[in-house]
């Protein structure tokens, strides 16, 4: 386990914290855990802007760029505000970076990016989005035909709410990488943060693209491992379960949020009717009118409440995507294991061939054996040549097996370290999320108590 430095006791603030504030606590925890990178610099994604330009097929397109700001943490100059370095990056560049990290550190549980795109949906759909949450990441809300609808469904990537949430997600991604014991010291990552131009070239020079392509092909192929590592199999299974349960939770939560919206908004009607009624009453008028105002306030309060719930949903979503990263690591391990097994198998068969050739006995059926039976044995020179070739191959094979073994061992070791790190991070973060959810509920209850107490006072004056 990399030496992270300071302790990480959960920062459980007082119950008056909003979830966005507790999100900051999360970030502070990451910074406190402090990799050497984070000790050196502050990182943030401060802004987002629209740009237009020509894309790869020479067509005009509009896209969003995000401003990455870095600032050296100079303990010496506490008073002054050190110079800010900044550069603009598009989402696609973040994707490139992540792919590079995936390939270069296959054993690492690489932090996920925020949603790629939002699923477009009909406004009158009455069931939750049915798309596979693995590939299409969606904040899908169950829209009703009633006039009370809370749709957090951004119809396109240009929607300001969506852009804002993505900005936060991208910042989170950078901080996660920067606080990763291994990933944070990657040179390309550093360049991504500091070099606007030339970053891509340097990255491509590492030749990761070729590795990426071959890896991708291999990973997508189906293969069976003879001796699956139980731990990794369990981890993969866990990843599956986590993904499934978080998706379910997000769906259920979204539907409940929509319904809650309806409940609050209908109370607004009380406000209207009380106001109208107060017009025809003499003594009751004042009480009714002011009670009506409180009902309006109650109805309006749900917007903030649901806005805060969105933060909570985002925290869950990050781990939904993390689950995928976890599964990817397990899959890569399988691949490594498979390649080792293939190498071993290859070596074994070559050794067997040598034995047969040396002793002249044909233990296993082989076409060679048959043909040699039919067409006569080879000459001793031919046999000698073949033996020599086999010897070389066997030597190479043994080297390869040794390599692959080492690779496998190395992978298992590093991966398991990172998985443990991830587990701890996940337990900590999700517990924080649950706590912030509770804080949110408490805040909602307190607001409710206040409104209804106020309303009660007004009713008493009726």
């Amino acid at each position: 386990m990399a030496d992270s430095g300071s302790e990480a006791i959960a920062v459980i603030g007082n119950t008056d914290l909003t979830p966005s504030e507790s999100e900051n606590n999360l970030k502070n925890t990451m910074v406190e855990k402090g990799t050497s990178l984070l000790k050196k610099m502050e990182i943030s994604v401060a802004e987002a802007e629209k740009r237009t330009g020509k894309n790869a097929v020479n067509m005009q397109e509009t896209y969003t760029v995000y401003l990455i700001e870095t600032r050296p943490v100079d303990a010496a100059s506490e008073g002054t505000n050190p110079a800010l370095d900044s550069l603009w990056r598009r989402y696609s560049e973040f994707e490139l970076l992540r792919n590079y990290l995936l390939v270069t550190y296959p054993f690492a549980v690489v932090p996920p990016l925020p949603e790629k795109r939002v699923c477009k949906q009909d406004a009158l759909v009455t069931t939750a989005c049915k798309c596979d949450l693995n590939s299409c990441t969606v904040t899908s809300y169950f829209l009703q035909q009633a006039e009370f609808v809370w749709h957090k469904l951004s119809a396109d990537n240009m929607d300001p709410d969506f852009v804002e949430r993505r900005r936060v997600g991208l910042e989170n991604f950078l901080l996660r990488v920067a606080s990763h014991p291994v990933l944070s010291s990657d040179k390309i990552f550093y360049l991504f943060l500091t070099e606007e131009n030339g970053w891509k070239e340097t990255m491509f020079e590492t030749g990761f693209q070729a590795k990426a392509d071959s890896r991708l092909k291999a990973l997508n192929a189906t293969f069976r491992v003879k001796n699956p590592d139980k731990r990794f199999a369990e981890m993969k299974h866990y990843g599956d379960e986590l993904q499934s349960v978080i998706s379910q939770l997000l769906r259920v939560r979204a539907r409940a949020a929509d319904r809650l919206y309806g409940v609050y908004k209908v109370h607004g009607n009380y406000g209207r009717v009380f106001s109208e009624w107060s017009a025809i009453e003499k003594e009751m008028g004042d009480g009714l009118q002011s009670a009506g105002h409180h009902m309006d306030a109650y109805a309006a309060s749900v917007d903030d409440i649901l806005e805060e719930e969105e933060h909570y949903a985002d925290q869950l979503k990050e781990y939904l995507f993390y689950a995928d990263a976890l599964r990817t690591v397990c899959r890569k391990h399988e691949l490594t294991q498979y390649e080792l097994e293939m190498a071993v198998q290859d070596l074994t068969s070559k050794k067997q061939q040598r034995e047969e050739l040396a002793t002249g006995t044909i233990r296993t059926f082989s076409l060679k054996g048959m043909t040699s039976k039919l067409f006569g044995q080879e000459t001793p020179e031919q046999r000698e040549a073949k033996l020599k070739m086999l010897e070389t191959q066997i030597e190479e094979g043994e080297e390869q097996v040794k390599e692959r073994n080492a690779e496998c061992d190395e992978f298992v070791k590093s991966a398991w370290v990172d998985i443990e790190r991830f587990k701890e991070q996940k337990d900590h973060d999700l517990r924080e999320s649950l706590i912030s959810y509770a804080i949110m509920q408490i805040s909602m209850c307190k607001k409710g108590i206040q409104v209804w107490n106020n309303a009660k006072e007004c009713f008493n004056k009726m």
Partner: protein
Amino acid sequence: MSGSVVDNTVSSGNSSAAIPTDVSGQILDLDEDDDLEVFSKDTTLTDGSSFNASMQTSPASMINQYKFEEDADTKDIFVTVDNPESHVTAIETYITYRVMTKTTRSEFDSSEFEVRRRYQDFLWLKGRLEEAHPTLIVHPLPEKFVVKGMVERFNEDFIETRRRALHRFLNKIAEHPIFSSSEDFKIFLTAASGELTSHKKQGPGFLSRMGDTVKAVAAAVRGVRNRPQEFTEMQEYVEAFSQKIISLDKVTQRIVREQKEYLEELKECGPTYALWSQSEEELAEPLKNVAGCVDRCCKETEEQVKNLSDHLIPVLHEYVLCADTLKAVLRRRDNIQADFEAKTEALATKKANRDTESKVLSLAWASLVGRSPEEVKQQKLKGEIKEMRDDLDKAEDRLEWANNALKSDWTRWQKVMRTDLRSAFVDTAERNVSYYEKCLAVWESFLHSQRTDAEGNGKVDFS
């Protein structure tokens, strides 16, 4: 039917009613029979003198007698409705409710009574009160059965809601200065079932009521010419009030619906957290905890929905029916006025006829014919006119009585309405506060458990 022992006022059938004129705060005890004579359309009871005598004091002073100060201390009768039971006979199945009365009133034979009544009996009582006092406001009864909600007659919730409404109904009657001294009310509270049945059969019955309705409809067509401003204002208010209260009823019902749907979704959250906890180790405990909290909040939400349905909605609904009652009362008052106006017109016409006739005749016939047939005719006319005048006087008195009764009861009703709706809304607000307080406690206990855990874990984690 007579012989009700009523203190300090009318003795049976007798004319001299010693109705005190200075009675602010005192309840007016009227012999039930006199009421019937005054207000029923049954013209066989024409003891005009008795009527007149009991109306010796001007209707204006009646206003004083209807005024009352709601003093809880002076409440001398307590009525409860409870203990529904189902009865099965060969013909039908029905529910009876126990009606218990505790009173210190001397006109009651004892101080405690317990009887069983069914919904029909309540209907009968309401009808009698409305008949006897067409321009007083009788609190509505719960409806016969709810078609909308497809509620079965013998469903537990339905019976309980109805029981509460019947309880409120009887208490409203008991608190009403006029109604509470009604003989029918007393019999309702005290008579054994058999007695009640036989009492029900007497007096103006169903057909008479039908007749009234028909006449009322006919009269309504006639229209009122000089409706006093205050009653026009009353009508406008009732129209507006009716709309508002109907809206409130609808809004509340919508809230209940939305809450129920919210509850349906929320019910799935807890189990999802619980399911998640099964795949986790460190997180298992907080997740299970959260699942428990969500489930507890579900229960509280369920109860809150029930509260709205059980407490606020029935009261709003009653006032929707009240609005209809008010409209009917105003109509009846209008009819009484229309009746008076019609009679006034008829008398004027008759008088005019008499005058013209007498002029013409005296000129024409004086010389030609003997006076006899003429005189007879004149005499007949005189008689007719006197009858019409008496009728008119009665109608006038009836109108004044009705107007004053309505005015007083209107003031009383507004006070009661204000109290009822205020307490219903205050109650609702309190329940909402309590709901949020309970949920708050649930989540705070979760936070507390996590805090203590964190402190514990922190000590372990620290390396």
